[in-house]
């Protein structure tokens, strides 16, 4: 979780990722950001997020994203 938060904060230092639940819906994260996050996660945690998991529900909050990472690590 900490790794994820670091990645996110580096991208957008001024956003409160603990509470925000509309990261995609409010266009805080654009497609560039999403890809950057996925590549970072891949290099740092060795999880691969496949394209079909890139849906707003998974990227709207840090919590949801972390749940996705854990689910993928579990497989």
């Amino acid at each position, binding site marked *: 979780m900490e790794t994820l938060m670091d990645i996110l904060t580096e991208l957008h230092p001024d956003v409160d990722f603990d509470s925000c639940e509309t990261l995609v819906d409010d*266009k805080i994260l*654009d*497609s*560039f950001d*999403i*890809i*950057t996050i*996925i*590549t*970072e996660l*891949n*290099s740092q945690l060795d999880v*691969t*997020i*496949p*394209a*079909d998991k*890139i849906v707003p529900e998974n990227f709207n909050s840090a919590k949801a994203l972390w749940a996705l990472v854990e689910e993928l690590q579990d*497989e």
Partner: protein
Amino acid sequence: MSFVSFEFLLFLLILFVLYYTLPRRFQWMLLLVGSLVFYAFASPKYLIYIAVTAMSTWAAGRAISAEYRGRDSYIKETPDITKEQKKARKEAAKKKAKTIMVLCLVLNLGILAVIKYTDFFISNINSLFGADIAFMRFALPMGISFYTFMSAGYIIDVFRGKYAAEENPARFALFVSFFPQLVQGPISRFDDLSKSLYEEHAFDAQSITHGAWRVLWGYFKKMVVADRLAPLVAGIAGSPDKYAGGYVLALIFFYSLQIYADFTGGIDITIGIAKMFGVKVTENFDRPFFSRNIAEFWRRWHITMGTWFKDYIFYPVSVSKWMMKVSKWSRAKLGNTVGKRVPVYLSTILVWLATGIWHGASWNFVVWGLLNCVVIMISQEISPLYDKFHKRFSFSNTKGWDIFQMFRTFWLMGFLRVLDVYRDVPLTFRMVPTIFSGRGWSEMFSGGLLKFGLSTADFVVVLAACIVMLVVGILQGRGTVCGQLSEKPRAVRWTVIWVLIVIIITLGAYGIGYDAAQFIYNQF
């Protein structure tokens, strides 16, 4: 059967009456029959193409879903299944499904590629090697780019397990051929469209009225603005030797207006008609000329195409295993800051190449796509700087600054679009600089612009229509205009509609233009 024709209105009327008088379980079948009739009117010979795409995609989707069902029942019904067994079964199913999907994509994108790009390919071979291969000159079946992309999106979604495949071939054929969106899109997604497409619809006066309003508004944009400007744009672009300098700037401006009115108007007609049949078609525009930068513009213009490329090309390519490797390699070799951007930028370039090619089979579209890409990347790169600038200067948060940004985006997009008008890369790069040469300006304003069949009165109409479109755009920012209009008293509502109809009929640029001189009895 063009949207702007009496035949189409008659067709619509008949279909509409049948739709709400026949038993409701026949409604979707009627839409299918209507769509086939519509298609047959345009090009009966090409029904075969759309039939092949619809049926092959339907069969492939069904096969994939069957595969997944087999997998699920195996996992469920095998007692004491181990995690490894489960995984192996899943992978086997995925592999099989992938083969089916790839075959389906190769077939249908292949048809599109052959029909749309063979001549482009031949002309490049010819000019590269001095060969003289004859062109194939395939006629493009109506809507092929749209229905092929819709089918491709569907099969990928079924493969991804986003939804189960449609079992009924006729219902699937309706999704692919639904007539209002055959001409210029949008590129609908199956899960968005299917529910309201197959549902039974009661006669809902409110929704039908709103649909009709939207259709009227679309006709207004198309007939009063776009079709009026068409001869002017074609005239200037058609004689680049004669019309340079100031004319090129006028061309940029009027072409931007024309394409906006034509495309958004067409989509308004599409969405409005669908709504009159109770079908909800995805929005394709979100007031694009209010965008403050190009990236935003592309999120608000031809939205369904943008999201299609994002979901089916940009994301899969960016997160592919191969790209992850590239990313690791580039970080190691180029350092973290640069390396991190490599995958995103590579995918971006790919998407814009594809977007360019999608618009048309010629180099001007390729160059146009890449230029869009370059502008977006530059603005991405300078955005930190931009943020600093915003913090430093207070005026950057004012309305005026917003308007300046919109203005800038309008012209930037306009300049890129010149490639689309001249359809010739070297010519475009020769013409654009003439704007700054001072040529043509005085001629243009001393009657030059009146030589293309548009009178001063026509320009006044265009200006007035632009003001109306602007006001409607601002109103749209506060919610749907239909919604706002329905809250007004009946007298206001009906007057607005009455005025709109009278304006379309009277000021619309349709039919044979009146020229008193034609009627002068000059022969015998």
